[in-house]
């Protein structure tokens, strides 16, 4: 039997929709489990990102100081890094705050839309960057998997192609949005 590859998945500034689409692979998840060991993911109970991972699916834009640390950490440990979905590829919906100042975003989020609240939390939480960025703004990305969310078919196809040692040909299959 062929040795299994290790797979990590994580979401940063995303809505988890890409992970929902991953689960939508449905019964083919059994095939995925046959070729990959999921070693880190919101779906498994591991707290530390492993030292070495073959493939990482990274959902979400990079929006906080903690995201920046994490994406660098992930890149160091990952052989094939996949920008998983439009937020990771283009910064997508999280970037819609980018033409506002961070303090205005906070005011809108915590004060104007929450009557009676006077506190903007600033302790023990990640610090918001001035803008939300696509993953490749900070680190090299090996595969860009477009879609909001990427289709289950494209996710499955990508994982299988990489496991077979091929480069996934996504341009004819996937698109933004």
């Amino acid at each position, binding site marked *: 039997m062929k040795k299994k590859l290790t797979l990590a998945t994580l979401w940063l500034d995303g809505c988890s929709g890409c992970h929902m689409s991953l689960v939508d692979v449905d019964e083919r998840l059994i095939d995925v489990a046959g070729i990959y060991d999921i070693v880190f993911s919101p779906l498994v109970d591991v707290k530390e990102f492993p030292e070495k991972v073959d493939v990482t699916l990274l959902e979400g834009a990079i929006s906080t100081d903690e995201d920046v640390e994490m994406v660098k950490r992930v890149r160091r440990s990952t052989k094939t890094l996949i*920008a998983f979905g*439009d937020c990771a*590829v*283009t*910064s*997508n*919906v999280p*970037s*819609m705050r*980018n*033409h*506002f100042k961070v303090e205005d975003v906070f005011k809108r989020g915590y004060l104007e839309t929450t009557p009676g609240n006077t506190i903007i939390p600033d302790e023990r939480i990640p610090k918001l960057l001035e*803008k939300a960025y*696509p993953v*490749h*703004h900070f680190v090299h*990305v090996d595969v*860009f998997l*477009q879609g*909001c969310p990427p289709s289950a078919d494209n996710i499955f196809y990508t994982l299988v192609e990489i496991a077979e040692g091929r480069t996934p040909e*996504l*341009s*004819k299959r*996937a*698109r*933004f*949005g």
Partner: protein
Amino acid sequence: MSSTVKIKTLTIDDRQVGAREDQTILEVARENGIKIPTLCYLKGLSPYGGCRMCIVEVAGSNKLLPSCMTAVEEGMVVSTQTEKIKKYRKSLLELYFSERNHVCSVCATNGYCELQSMAQKVEMTHVHFPYMYPHLEVDATHERFVLDHNRCIACTRCVRVCDEIEGAHTLDIKDRGINVRIITDLDQPWGESDTCTQCGKCVHVCPTGALIERGKSVGEMSKRKQLLPYLTKMREAHK
């Protein structure tokens, strides 16, 4: 077509083709089933040469020429799909995406957008340039239509259809380069326009979600692409 029009022969992508002397490279290529991508060009409107997606290489010239604006010449040797052209088309498209806020997933024309499908066509995987994230207005003052500058690529199809087909010339452009904006009348809110006839042709020729019908939500705004060819054909028939 007058009887004095001369015929030219030229080569496009290693194929010998015949053309009338008043035709452009793009027209002749399309007649012969040779696909050249375009965004600002629309049959029935005057060519504009703004989007630069239709650039081609012509032997003997070191410039890349817009095929929608370049007239055919006898013996011309044209290439439409060289590696150099493909690279430029992709980079151009990346610049379009980086210049404004094209968030496909929350756009009314998601699934129907020519910019979106062009990205797929030229195999654009991501945008190499830093995004500019400009702060742009949405003009929702018109009772039937919305103009969203975030999604405009300044192709001027709307300006041309408003002027050349509807004859209203409500729409125009102001400023240049990255600051270029579509305006209505004397740069006043669309809803206050005295000249707009509310015909909606601008909405249906717009390749992106920059012009949409009011009330259309994500993925609901398909464009009636047959509108302009139909109008042009009927007008020709009644001349």
